[in-house]
């Protein structure tokens, strides 16, 4: 069984900003594995472990530095990685990203494709819908519990009305939620071993993605302008635990809430 996991490198923590000049996300800072994707990696590893066989392949599209994010996921236990990186891919929107990922997945023919809950920089929680359509495979999203038996995946999905249970035959596409599991920490052995695992770097040409379907040229959305968010008024900050409870009470009293 082959499981492909789509992972993204995102700027770390509070460092996220949009570059006013390019109107693109500033990817210059240190990058990290999108935390939501660690859940997808973990789920893939668990499925492989309980099946007692199989292969977990990571797939990412991003700048060459996205190899950092991949390294963490390899250290968790994934078997190998594919990095799609190309200057012409910069500025790709959902549509352009979905083509490149779908082409790479077609080459791999995985039985199962896993996605994380959302990319912490785009907050889209949409990409899998486009990829599943291009791959012509069944999709289950927002999966909080996943089981795999006899070539059928069953997922528990939370919608606006409560929990649904949805089933699909393999090969399928599944997007997991961040509550599906607790991602493992890479062991020292895992970290050391990650460097030796196979990593393949592909360009758009390798995948047969036409240049007018990638990057800004292939995108059908654009950022027109940036502005400051309206301020919510004054916000106060208390640091440290010491006298925090007293300070909270004083604040609530001032607002006449206690």
């Amino acid at each position, binding site marked *: 069984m082959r499981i492909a996991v789509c992972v993204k490198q995102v700027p770390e923590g*509070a460092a*996220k*900003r*949009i570059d006013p000049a390019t109107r693109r*996300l500033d990817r210059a800072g240190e990058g990290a594995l999108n935390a939501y994707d660690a859940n997808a990696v973990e789920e893939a590893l668990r499925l492989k472990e309980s099946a007692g066989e199989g292969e977990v392949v990571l797939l990412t599209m991003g700048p060459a530095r996205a190899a950092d994010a991949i390294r963490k996921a390899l250290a968790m236990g994934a078997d190998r990685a594919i990095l799609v990186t190309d200057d012409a891919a910069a500025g790709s929107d959902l*549509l352009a990203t*979905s083509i490149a990922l779908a082409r790479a997945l077609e080459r791999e023919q995985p039985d199962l494709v896993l996605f994380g809950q959302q990319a912490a920089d785009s*907050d889209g*929680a*949409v990409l*899998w*819908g*486009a990829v*599943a*359509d291009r791959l*012509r495979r069944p*999709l289950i*999203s927002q999966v*909080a519990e996943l089981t795999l038996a006899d070539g059928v995946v069953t997922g528990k*999905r*939370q*919608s*606006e*009305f*409560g*929990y*649904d249970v*949805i*089933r*699909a035959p393999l090969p*399928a596409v599944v997007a997991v939620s961040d*509550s*599906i599991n607790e991602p493992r920490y890479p062991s020292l052995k895992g970290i050391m071993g990650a460097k030796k695992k196979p990593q393949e770097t592909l360009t758009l040409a390798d995948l047969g993605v036409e240049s007018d379907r990638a990057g800004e040229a292939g*995108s*059908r*959305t*654009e*950022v*027109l*302008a*940036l*502005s*400051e*968010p309206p301020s*919510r*008024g004054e*916000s*106060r*900050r*208390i*640091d*440290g635990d010491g006298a925090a*409870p*007293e*300070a*909270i*009470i004083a*604040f609530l009293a001032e607002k006449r*809430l*206690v």
Partner: protein
Amino acid sequence: MKVLVFLEHHEGSLEKRGLAVLSKAASLDGAEVAGAVLGAGVGEIAGTAGRFGARTVHVCDDPALEAPLPQPRVDALAALVAEEGFDTVFFAQSVLASDVAAGLAARLEAGLNWDLTDLLVRDGALVGKRPALADSVYVEVGWKGERRLALFRSGAFDPVEVGGQAQVESFSGRFEDFSLQATMVEQAHEERSGPSIEDAEIVVAGGRGLGKPENFSLVEELARELGGAVGATRAVVDAGWYPYSSQVGQTGKTVSPKLYVACGISGAIQHKVGMQNANVIVAINKDANAPIFEYCDLGVVGDLNEILPRLTELVRQRKAG
């Protein structure tokens, strides 16, 4: 501009979210707006859309559309868009609508902008507004190409009744094999247990930062002393720590209490949309970079295990006089 609005329905009525997007679309200059209602046995409810600005409602009534699954809906909408020549399709963000919109984007090679909170026509072009990067920056977005798709954030608009009647037209669906492979084994039915947190004046909510389900007692005790209700994030509801009826956010409840105390909650957008209208928001989180600190009135950086018991005790003392 020929706009189609996807109208989701649940238990025999059209969802307000979709009607809100519909009435917003109908208010745009030069927009001719229609609705799409897809499902099994939905002919009756479609007409309602006329009151919110739809001139036409296209109905696809098919057993293949009975369960709220995205892929057959992509097939039906793609055919409808091609046949009727729509250039724009709008969706009110939901678990189902997001998957449908993304699938349709790929199928039509159309641009999709999501999480929009506003929309306008400037010099004849459609412009969307979207708070991005945990709402730390506001972005204006546009579309390139002939077809435009958009998902609107929950609560972005209110449904406005403009009166009027829609012509209901039915169309038939043809479905791809792969679209029918996912099947619903068990569909959600509204859980109505316990008192609703929507009416509470004070909500104390807990997230994964509580560390373990038993720690919800820290939140419950503070809520009890403050005379409030208990809320939860999706992460802890999915994990089975607390019932779904207490969930606040996009796929849970929307609350607007006088006071919201967020304990061990990171403050993801999908949580924020359910509680941002609280008068006063207090957040306790040990990570000084947590997004929740961007939109609270009082942010406390610290360990809730130490802060909550003492805080509860102080409230108790204060009440005792």
